C-alpha cells in the first residue's frame, strides 16, 4: 500500500469532503474522489477503482451505515477498508457499526493526527493479514 491508494470520501457536506480531501493530500494521498451519499457512492465503488472508503453516517438518501452494509454484502466489495467519520456519538451506534464490519470509527470534531492514526492502523492491519 502506498500513496497510490485510491480513496472515496462520502459526506453530504461539501466543506467536510474538502477538509478530508485536503488532509489526505497532506498525508501524501493524492488520489481522492468524493460522493455526497451512499446512493452516489455505491455505483462508484462497484467500478472497483477504490482501495479505501471514508464515510459519514448521517446523510440524506443512503446513510453511511447502509452503505457499509451494502459494501459488506457485496462479495467483490466486502474486503474494502471502511472508516466511519461521523458526529454520531451514541454507544449503541458505534456497536452497530462495529457489528456491521466497520474497520475504524472517528468521531467529529476530529484532528488530522487522529485521521492519520486510524488510516495507518487500518492499512497496517491489512498489510499484516495479506502477508
Amino acid at each position, binding site marked *: 500500500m502506498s500513496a497510490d491508494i485510491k480513496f472515496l470520501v462520502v459526506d453530504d457536506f461539501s*466543506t467536510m469532503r474538502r477538509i478530508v480531501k485536503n488532509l489526505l493530500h497532506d498525508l501524501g494521498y493524492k488520489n481522492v474522489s468524493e460522493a455526497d451519499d451512499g446512493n452516489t457512492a455505491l455505483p462508484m465503488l462497484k467500478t472497483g477503482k477504490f482501495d479505501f472508503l471514508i464515510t459519514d453516517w*448521517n446523510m440524506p438518501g443512503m446513510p453511511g451505515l447502509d452503505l457499509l452494509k451494502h459494501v459488506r454484502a457485496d462479495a467483490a466489495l466486502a474486503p474494502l477498508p471502511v472508516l466511519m467519520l461521523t458526529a454520531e*456519538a*451514541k454507544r449503541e451506534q458505534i*456497536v452497530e457499526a462495529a457489528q456491521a464490519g466497520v474497520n475504524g470509527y472517528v468521531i467529529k470534531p476530529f484532528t488530522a493526527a487522529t485521521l492519520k492514526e486510524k488510516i495507518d492502523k487500518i492499512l497496517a492491519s491489512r498489510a499484516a493479514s495479506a502477508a
Partner: protein
Amino acid sequence: MSGSHFHERREHYATLLAALGEALQDGDEAGFHACARQLGEGFESDTMQDLRQITDGLHAALLRFRHDSRLDDLATREVPDARARLEHVLRMTDDAANTTLDLVEQSCPIADRAATRADELLEAWNGVPRPSRNVVRSYLEETRSGLGQVREKLSQVLLAQGFQDLSGQIIRSVMKLVDELEVALTHMVRISGGSLEPSSMLRADVAEPALSARGFGPVVPGVAHGLTVSGQTDVDALLSDLGM
C-alpha cells in the same frame, strides 16, 4: 330559546294564549289570527336574539384570538422569518468555510514552491560553482512576494471567521423565538385540556425507541441523547472492548 327568556315572557304568552282561547271560543277569526301572529313573532324574536348572542360570542372569541394570542403572528411571520434566518446562517457558514478552504488551497502551493526553491538553492550552494548573486536575489524576491501573498491570505482566513459572530447572534434570536413558540403552544395545549409542561415536548427523543439508521446528528449540550461517547478516546475504548 333560552330558559330566562321564557320566564321573562311567561306572562306575555299567558295573556296571548288566553286571548287566543277566547277568540277561538267566540268564533272571532280576526282576533284569533292576530293573537297567533303575535305569538309567532315572539318566538322568532327570541330565536334571533339567541343567534345574535352566539354570533357575537364567536366574533369576540375570534377577535380575542387574533389580538391577544401571538400565535397568528408567530405562524404567519416569525416562524417563516426564523427559517429564513437559519438558512442564511447555513449559507454564511458554508461560504465562510469554502472561502477559508480556497485560501488555504491557494496558500499551500506558494509555501511549497518557496520550500522547493530553497532546497534547490541549498543543494546548489554546496556545489561548485555556487549560485550567482542574481539567482539568490531572484529566490529572495520570489520568497518575499510569496510570503506576502500567504500573509494576505491568512488575514482573509481570519476575516472569513467573522461569520461566527453574526451567525451566533442570528441563532440566539431564533432560540428566543422558539422559546416563545413553545410557551404559546403549551398554553394552547393546556386550553384544549392537555397537561403539557414547557420543554417536555422539545426534549422528547422521538427516535429513541428504535436505533435510526439515518443517525441522530451531533451531540448538543443540554439535549438528551441517551448513552453517548465523550470523544475519540471513548470510541477507541469501546471498540477495543468489542475486540477491534
